[in-house]
């Protein structure tokens, strides 16, 4: 009963015959802060196909978690979605009413949070917490619910006799698996995992990832996997989107992104983690700090930290464009090789010009 309606909306860049599950178009999210609004997500678009793992990477504050929360529509004020479309199985999530939303969450998309092991209720058994989730969406008796919960625990590799354990009786890794069991309960076609293994030790992380991979093969769901751990992301995802200051600055299949990163920021990220094998060489990282989104840098938002900065970079906003089939990048270095038209809105007055003019009329948020 979940797959209905089909893809009636024209999927712009989906390959013919491919099965698009979720399409995000020009998503914009702002946080209304005291000093003005912060555009945490600024025109993000991408699609997810059935059974696909999309990696979302970037530094803290780049907007990757905000994208995830926007998809679930769990953003709280002062965060507001100011524009865009989130089309899930042909329907716009942003237009759903409360009843539809309740069904969409957990039936359509479930989410595993970063501190998920601490998101369990400490005074309820894990069995009860799983049954709760199931009964909120399905009419099942307590006995049936209990049986389903026990099965789910077995699926994620927890013995079924732990069903009456309280969270504190489980180790961190087991709690994380229990949370994944809850997310799996209604077998949604999409799971969003926001740093699901960051708080865990590497060995436990490896176990959980193996489990996720196995479950994905078995149930065929899609995953949006959010992390700042590039080496992990390259290993597990089909495609990766790199975010910087609220925008996707590069997107490609993960192998290609790892082997031939185009954007200087991606290159910097890939050169930021020491490798386990190969020659020991000096790494440089990326100089500077992530930008302040209240007053983001003019032109390309990465230009103050960019080692390949050109004259135009602080004046013209680069567009995300296709560099080669399936490989998009937002950088002036690659714009010469593709047709590009500079729109008046892409142009930004040079900081010195602003200073000369004294005060410039602020473009207010509509």
């Amino acid at each position, binding site marked *: 009963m979940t797959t209905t309606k089909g893809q009636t909306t024209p999927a712009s860049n989906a390959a013919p015959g491919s099965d698009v599950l979720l399409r995000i178009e020009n998503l914009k999210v702002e946080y209304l802060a005291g000093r003005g609004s912060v555009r945490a997500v600024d025109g993000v678009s991408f699609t997810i196909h059935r059974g696909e793992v999309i990696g979302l990477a970037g530094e*803290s504050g780049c907007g990757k978690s905000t994208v995830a929360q926007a998809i679930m529509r769990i953003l709280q004020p002062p965060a507001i979605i100011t524009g865009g479309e989130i089309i899930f199985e042909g329907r716009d999530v942003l237009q759903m009413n409360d009843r539809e939303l309740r069904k969409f969450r957990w039936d359509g998309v479930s989410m595993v949070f970063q501190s998920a092991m601490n998101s369990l209720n400490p005074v309820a058994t894990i069995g009860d917490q799983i049954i709760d989730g199931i009964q909120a969406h399905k009419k099942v008796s307590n006995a049936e619910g209990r049986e389903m919960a026990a099965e789910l625990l077995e699926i994620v590799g927890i013995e079924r006799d732990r069903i009456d354990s309280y969270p504190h009786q489980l180790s961190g890794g087991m709690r994380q698996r229990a949370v994944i069991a809850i997310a799996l309960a209604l077998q949604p076609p999409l799971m969003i995992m926001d740093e699901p293994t960051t708080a865990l030790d*590497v060995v*436990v*992380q490896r176990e959980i990832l*193996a489990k996720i*991979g196995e479950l994905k093969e078995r149930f065929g769901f899609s995953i949006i996997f959010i992390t700042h751990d590039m080496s*992990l992301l390259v290993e597990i995802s089909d495609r990766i989107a790199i975010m910087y200051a609220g925008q996707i600055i590069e997107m490609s299949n993960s192998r290609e992104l790892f082997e031939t990163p185009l954007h200087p920021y991606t290159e910097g990220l890939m050169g930021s983690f*020491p*490798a*386990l094998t190969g020659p020991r060489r000096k790494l440089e990282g990326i100089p500077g700090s992530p930008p302040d989104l209240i007053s983001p840098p003019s032109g390309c938002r990465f230009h103050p930290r960019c080692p390949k900065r050109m004259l135009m970079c602080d004046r013209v906003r680069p567009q995300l464009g296709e560099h080669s089939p399936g490989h998009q990048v937002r950088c002036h270095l690659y714009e010469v090789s593709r047709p590009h038209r500079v729109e008046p809105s892409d142009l930004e007055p040079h900081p010195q010009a602003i200073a000369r003019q004294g005060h410039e009329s602020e473009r207010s948020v509509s």
Partner: protein
Amino acid sequence: MIEAPPKQDLVMDIRNLTKHFPIGGIGDKRKVHAVEDVTFHIPRRQIVTLVGESGSGKSTTARLIARLIEPTSGEIIYNGTDVLKSESSGASLKYRSDVQMVFQDPFGSLNPAHTIEYILERPLKIHKKTRGRKETRERIYELLETVGLGPAQEVAAKFPYELSGGQRQRVAFARALSVEPKVMLADEPVSMLDVSIRVGVLNLMKRLADDQGLSFLYITHDIASARYISDHTNVMYAGRMVEGAPSDELVHEPAHPYTKLLLSAVPNPHAGLRTTDVPARGEIPSLIDPPPGCPFAPRCPFAMKRCREAMPPPFTIGKDHWARCYLYDDLPNDPNV
């Protein structure tokens, strides 16, 4: 890489360091064996790593060496003297300035109510490193420049919340440096920082070791970063040190089954995609009055009967490379460990 001097010049020589914590219940005699019989050393100007998972005792070891807590038994030989004996009632001010610690959380380790200048001024005053306002100021600016924070005057006037995580961690390093330490104990100094910032802080540590002759104990769970900056790496598991080797050798020729497990779990995009085989399951065992024998035996694919009966002694695998594992009992014991 730095060649080890012919006669090892040791800054720190840690012998049989042990820490048991009482559980705390009334009449409860049980003890948590947090650190058990740990022996290793830090040669001058080198970076030595302790790598392990949470609960392995690596942070407790650092806190013992910093003398934030007192060990149950063992020796901490600093520049040839056992400081636990010579300064038995607590570390001297000199030891505290010679051995400095940098913590994991740069958001929690700096007082949010004070400016960077004040934060750096305190240790200079307490340890009487500078005289007068002008000299103190100049020293603060110099320290900030050393850790790569500039323009120093601007940074000094800021509050911690105005700095990013990486910058804050650099301030923490500057504060530790202010008292002219000889040894720095860095407890997971980069694990809370953004990926793009981490390498900068690691490079800073390497530079301080190379240029200023500092010796480092680097504590981490990230074995790849251990290989990147350190000369020697020791692996800890459940309070025990199970293997030690030159960092590069440890990664390429691990001897102990636990080290192998740890290495196989590290995400490695160079090694191809989706390695889903998990060589050993389970987690670190309880440290409350653990049974005799190797703590890894319950998870070890090679465990033998004798592994559950007694902890294996260190066997020599190669130069500066040893492992506590009975798989290598045909090799001679390592007298240095």
